[in-house]
């Protein structure tokens, strides 16, 4: 009896499900192929991580591959070249992030003090523009500006007497991280200020009026009102940026590097590209990429959780 009503219930449920599927036929036709597509391009390649634990040969099938355990990871963490790429990645990531933060906050504070709406808008428009140009164009412009022959930077520095002869900005290792930091700031500064300017627009104007009555000047208002009111935004962006500590940017370094600076220019991503696709050591490159991506995903996840905990994600 119990069994029978169960079966009947299940039958009703199945019938209901069937009815839903039929009535939603068109939505299923629209969505299922797209979801399968997403699974194919985003999830299926995860299977390729097995290469990191094999002596992968593209000519062999999966069952013929030789399994080597952690061999490639042991190799990576004793390889001075790879350890150097970790150092470079961290260094450039930290330089870019801190420079990016300081310049964006400073620029947003100054821009916020501009009274003329037209002037403010023009400056903003100019400042976003490089964000939309490709890295190929931007690094090309940077190389032209830093050129030894008639480069604008050398010309200006020579003219005001800071240097006596043109500096080889792009071929001396000691300048490379600085050049990358400056390039990053030049391209992304305007874009990075948008979120701060939005936060500043929401500050209660009566706070400024009260401060004026108390005799505060522009600097004090900036320091005691504007800056504290964007503090939550700054903190959230800082936390989120931790998730990208191994993303030092790839294109800048790839496009500006050359043989003379490769000890300081090569990041983990460049290592993967050089060893994987140019020297066809697929297993080693996959292991290096796996290390980076797993650390990255974990950090992004933790950073997102941390932001959620603070309950301030609505600001982003």
């Amino acid at each position, binding site marked *: 009896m119990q069994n029978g009503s169960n079966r009947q219930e299940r039958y009703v449920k199945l019938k209901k499900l069937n009815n839903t599927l039929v009535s939603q036929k068109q939505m299923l036709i629209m*969505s299922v192929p797209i979801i399968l597509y997403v699974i194919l391009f985003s999830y299926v390649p995860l299977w390729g991580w097995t290469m990191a634990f094999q002596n992968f040969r593209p000519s062999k099938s999966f069952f013929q591959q030789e399994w080597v355990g952690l061999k490639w990871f042991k190799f990576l963490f004793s390889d001075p070249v790879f350890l150097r790429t970790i150092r470079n990645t961290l260094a450039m990531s930290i330089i870019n992030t801190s420079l990016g933060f300081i310049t964006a906050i400073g620029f947003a504070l100054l821009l916020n003090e501009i009274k003329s709406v037209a002037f403010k808008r023009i400056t903003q428009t100019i400042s976003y523009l490089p964000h939309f140009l490709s890295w190929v*164009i931007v690094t090309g412009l940077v190389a032209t500006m830093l050129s030894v022959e008639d480069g604008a930077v050398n010309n200006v520095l020579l003219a005001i007497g800071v240097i006596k002869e043109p500096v080889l900005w792009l071929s001396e290792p000691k300048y490379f991280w600085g050049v990358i930091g400056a390039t990053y700031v030049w391209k992304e500064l305007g874009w990075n200020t948008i979120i701060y300017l939005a936060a500043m627009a929401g500050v209660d104007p009566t706070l400024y009026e009260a401060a004026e009555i108390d005799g505060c000047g522009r600097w004090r208002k900036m320091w005691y009102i504007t800056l504290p009111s964007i503090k939550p935004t700054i903190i959230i962006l800082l936390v989120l940026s931790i998730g990208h500590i191994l993303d030092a940017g790839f294109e800048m370094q790839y496009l500006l590097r050359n043989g003379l600076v490769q000890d300081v220019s090569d990041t983990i991503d460049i290592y993967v590209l050089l060893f994987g696709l140019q020297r066809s050591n697929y297993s080693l490159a996959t292991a290096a990429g796996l290390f980076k991506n797993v650390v990255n995903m974990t950090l992004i996840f933790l950073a997102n959780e941390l932001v959620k905990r603070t309950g301030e994600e609505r600001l982003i």
Partner: protein
Amino acid sequence: MKRRVNYNEYIFNTINVTIMILFSITMLYPFWNTIAVSFNEAIDTIRGGITLMPRRFTLQNYRIVFSNGTIFHAFLVSVARTTLNVLTNVFFTAMIAYVLSRPNFIFRKQFTVILVVSMYINAGLIPTYFLIKNLHLLNTFWVYVIPSMVSAFNFLVIRTFLRNIPESIIESVRIDGGTDFIIFFKIILPLSKPVLATVALFVAVGAWNSWFDTLIYASSKVNLHTLQYKLMEFLQSSQAQSRSAGDIGSMALSKTSNMVTPVSIRAAITVIAATPIIIVYPFIQRYFVIGMNLGGVKE
């Protein structure tokens, strides 16, 4: 007392405006200078000293670039891939956004999770390369189109917009016998034009600017090279003379005319590669402001 405050204000404003002007010059000068060089006679440019204006105006550099078959072809490849990327990405992303914005859709939760999580996971360069290889997309034009037909981020953007479309409109069409296909094509697509335009602009900018997919998936097929990739080759060849790929390119060009130098050609290609971005830039900005307003941010 009052006078001192005004005096301080005056100094502050002057310094601030000066900083902003210096900053704007830093942002604009490199590009302005490149435009000037691209319109200057190549031989004259070697003498140096070109800053804001061409000294000896000419269109020769552009004429050479466009009469060079490979560069013009690369321009066409870039146009073709950008067009197809925009059409496919906007269409398919809008379609999945519509289905997953229907509260009663049976797999709404599961499908949404699959899409959103795909934003965070990244198999990496080598596994993705082998996927492309196994799908026989290597060195074909379709490698530019097929892997980027849906975007999880754009999905979130479009879905947010669709949530603001009143349910009563959709219901009334359904009562009149409208199927989901009809609702999507006749109601959703026309109503969401603003958000689709925004997404289209951002997809277009990304597609036009990309060069890395050419490098890893199609670099051995010269007729698949995009304009950005060609420009990249020129830049690399001038930085390190040993890089052969770019040298072949510049030799091919210099055969066309002895009136040309890599510097001038590079400047002309840079301007050509940036012009479409500059043209759509005002629209990007307009939609950008609209987007900010939709987000409830006061200007």
